[in-house]
């Protein structure tokens, strides 16, 4: 049924296009939509996809790698370091408790100790892909619950490595005898195989250092070079090469590619290319993750379920319950609020994608037999499918009955973030704007398209990002969805107009404040509906004229008043003239009228308060008034 690669691509894409919008329509997460699509196109329902589903699964795992890179990009090294306690603490507690309980349970049901141990290792791991995708989709990454989920998942991603190292020790079979035919990276021969443990450990540390150094001294200069070429797709290519390179290096030394990508992301989080990388990789990540979820759905073996419905559902329920209870306990230990505990417990209760790797590896080592492997693979896939459903039940039915809700999680921090500001263009104009804002603690997200200037400004200590702000994807990764304000300080009037048009059309909630070169640009911006237009030369030219007058002997205070009035009247006249057709006799006539009117108003202002015949303060007049009032 499934011949060409084109046919397969069409099947997967069509499955996604049909199922995900339907799931969304019913208020379900996109993850569930993908999983259902996978089940439908899989071998047991429509049968479009057969055994090759497994290969696709491994290919699509690369989506998880890209996702961790993107997550790393959003975590600056400083905040990563701050999280170390919760990563080790929560992650460690979850590992030990889950492993112990699960081991006890499987041993109790008569499984061999090796089998129980391997299965328990798999059970410990939750699905980074599902949980983080759901968190991002709901915008919950910043909450306590989001941070706790992330800590535990990250710890699990790290702990997979020692697990993969331990499993061969359990095998009676000679490790080196395993052929390299396994499709998993983990079962390939590594560079380091056969080296003593100490050297291996050293190599691992070395590769982590290498990633950090490469981030600083290789990736950033490379991106700068590529940016100068001003060919957009080259930046996409560079982004992919970085992630692929990281994954490759990590696989060679036997570390998890996802972890390597995450580290690379953290290193690049402070670079000016952060948003550019994000917007370039986002579509790849989305598609590959979708593919990954569909592959999981397609891999569910319904024949096994049909053969042992009681046993499979028993294990599925048992595993979910066990994981949820342990995580609930850990969350309580770390003093999360009741609702956050529940969210976390239900959120992380599934078995994750790393279980596929661990279990297949153990099967190749003869620790698990075919039946045990199939059973656990089905359990894993089913728990992953149930995860979004359980999450939904938790949110809709259980949480509303429990007192505290989101509002408590919103701190002052949240308020500060809700005033998000994007500053486009960081030349002479924009940098002045940015500096003044910063002196008031307002850190705008700054975008500029001149890579040389970005480089220079970053050396001077400004956090500027490289990118062309007239691209919606870049604006999106700069956070325009949540932004309140966009400041356009772009020099080129055409770029300004393109930017303003884009923002007004796609993000009407964002207030725009725009720099205009002169009167005619200001007219155009006003006519596009921008209320806050700033002519760059107005204030300084009036200031110059004021200084001239002061030099000639006019009193400075009076001049300042008049300068303020002049600017005010000129702004008013600008707004009146904005929609007049230009280049006509009538426009010139009107403009002349406006100028005359303006001069008259200024003259009136100057005369105001000058009273020639105010004898009111004479003592005689005062007495007369007093008599009148009495």
């Amino acid at each position, binding site marked *: 049924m499934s011949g060409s690669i084109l046919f397969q691509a069409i099947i997967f894409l069509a499955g996604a296009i049909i199922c995900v919008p339907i799931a969304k329509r019913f208020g379900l997460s996109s993850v569930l939509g993908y999983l259902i699509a996978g089940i439908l196109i899989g071998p047991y329902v429509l049968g479009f996809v057969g055994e090759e589903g497994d290969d696709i699964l491994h290919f699509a795992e690369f989506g998880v790698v890209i996702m961790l890179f993107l997550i790393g990009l959003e975590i600056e090294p400083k905040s990563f370091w701050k999280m170390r306690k919760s990563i080790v603490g929560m992650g460690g507690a979850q590992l030990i408790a889950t492993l112990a309980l699960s081991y006890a349970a499987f041993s109790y049901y008569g499984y061999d100790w090796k089998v129980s141990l391997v299965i328990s290792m798999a059970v410990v791991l939750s699905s980074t892909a599902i949980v983080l995708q759901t968190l991002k989709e709901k915008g919950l990454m910043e909450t306590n619950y989001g941070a706790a989920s992330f800590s535990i998942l990250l710890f699990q991603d790290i702990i997979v490595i020692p697990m993969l190292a331990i499993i061969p020790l359990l095998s009676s079979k000679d490790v080196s005898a395993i052929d390299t035919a396994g499709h998993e990276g983990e079962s390939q021969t590594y560079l380091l195989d056969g080296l003593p443990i100490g050297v291996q450990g050293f190599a691992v540390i070395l590769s982590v250092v290498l990633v950090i150094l490469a981030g600083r001294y290789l990736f950033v200069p490379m991106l700068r070079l590529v940016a100068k070429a001003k060919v957009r797709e080259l930046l996409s290519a560079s982004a992919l090469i970085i992630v692929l390179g990281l994954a490759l290096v990590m696989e060679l030394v036997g570390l998890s590619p996802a972890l390597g990508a995450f580290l690379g992301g953290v290193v690049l989080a402070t670079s000016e290319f952060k948003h550019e990388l994000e917007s370039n990789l986002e579509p790849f990540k989305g598609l590959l993750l979708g593919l990954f979820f569909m592959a999981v759905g397609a891999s569910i073996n319904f024949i096994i379920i049909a053969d042992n419905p009681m046993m499979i559902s028993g294990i599925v329920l048992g595993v979910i319950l066990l994981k949820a209870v342990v995580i609930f306990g850990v969350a309580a230990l770390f003093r999360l609020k009741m609702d956050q505990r529940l969210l976390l417990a239900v959120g992380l209760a599934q078995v994750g994608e790393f279980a596929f790797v661990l279990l297949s590896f153990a099967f190749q080592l003869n620790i698990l037999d075919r039946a045990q492997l199939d059973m656990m693979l089905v359990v894993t896939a089913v728990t992953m499918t149930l995860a979004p459903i359980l999450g939904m039940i938790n949110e809709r039915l259980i949480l509303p009955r429990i007192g505290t809700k989101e509002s408590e999680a919103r701190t002052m921090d949240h308020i500060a973030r809700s005033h998000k500001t994007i500053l486009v263009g960081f030349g002479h104009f924009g940098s002045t704007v940015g500096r003044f804002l910063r002196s008031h603690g307002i850190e705008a997200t700054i975008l500029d398209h001149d890579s040389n200037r970005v480089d220079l400004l970053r050396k001077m200590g400004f956090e500027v990002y490289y990118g062309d702000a007239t691209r919606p994807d870049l604006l999106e990764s700069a956070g325009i969805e949540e932004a309140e304000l966009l400041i356009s300080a772009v020099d080129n009037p055409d770029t300004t107009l393109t930017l303003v048009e884009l923002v007004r059309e796609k993000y009407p909630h964002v207030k725009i404040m725009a720099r205009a070169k002169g009167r005619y640009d200001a007219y155009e911006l006003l006519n596009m509906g921008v209320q806050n237009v700033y002519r760059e030369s107005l204030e300084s030219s009036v200031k110059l004229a004021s200084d001239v007058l002061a030099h000639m002997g006019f009193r400075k205070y009076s001049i300042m008043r008049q300068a303020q009035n002049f600017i005010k009247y000129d702004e008013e006249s600008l707004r009146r003239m904005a929609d007049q057709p230009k280049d006509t006799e009538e426009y010139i006539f009107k403009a002349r009228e406006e100028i005359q009117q303006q001069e008259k108003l200024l003259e009136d202002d100057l005369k105001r*308060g000058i009273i020639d015949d105010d004898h009111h303060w004479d003592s005689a007049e005062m007495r007369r008034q007093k008599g009148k009032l009495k």
Partner: protein
Amino acid sequence: MPKILLLFAHPRFERSRVNKALIEKVRKKDGVTFHDLYEQYPDFNIDVVMEKSLLANHDIIIWHHPFYWYSCPPLLKQWIDVVLEYKWAYGPEGNALQGKQVMSAITTGGTKKVYCAEGTNNYPVNEFLLPFEQTARLCGMDYLPPFVVMGTHSLPDQDLEAYTVAYDTAIDLLLDGVSETQLSKHAFFNQLPQLTNKNVK
């Protein structure tokens, strides 16, 4: 019903606990036009024409400000200087404000103890307010006893709450109309029995 123009002048409003509470209580009341001078004219460039029309449209004016150096902050003084024009507010044909009422609403850091003949400031608050009183009188307006919150530096929260309630009541009284005879008996608007019943010292 008469209308109140609440002219508020405070150069550091964001730092003021007491004024924030007072203003928050009354700014949105029916019949009250809240006019934040420092927010409206950060450059001190007062729009005289607009200010005059505002005055014309209101019957009662409140000069609400912190008491700085025995007087008002400079923008309110500027307002008095430029808005109360000759031949409009005073002088020949200067009767635009005739018959309107003016009340000062002030906050002082010092307590009532320092504002008296024996205290460090030597004179009671009312005497420091004489320029405002005379300004009002010259324009033919009635100057009402001031609403005063004193000792703001050490004012406990529950007392502040009581003051905001009193201010609210004072504005209701002004809108309903208070008799001149009743007012003339008191040095401070706060001392009116309608307000003291609300437990304000």
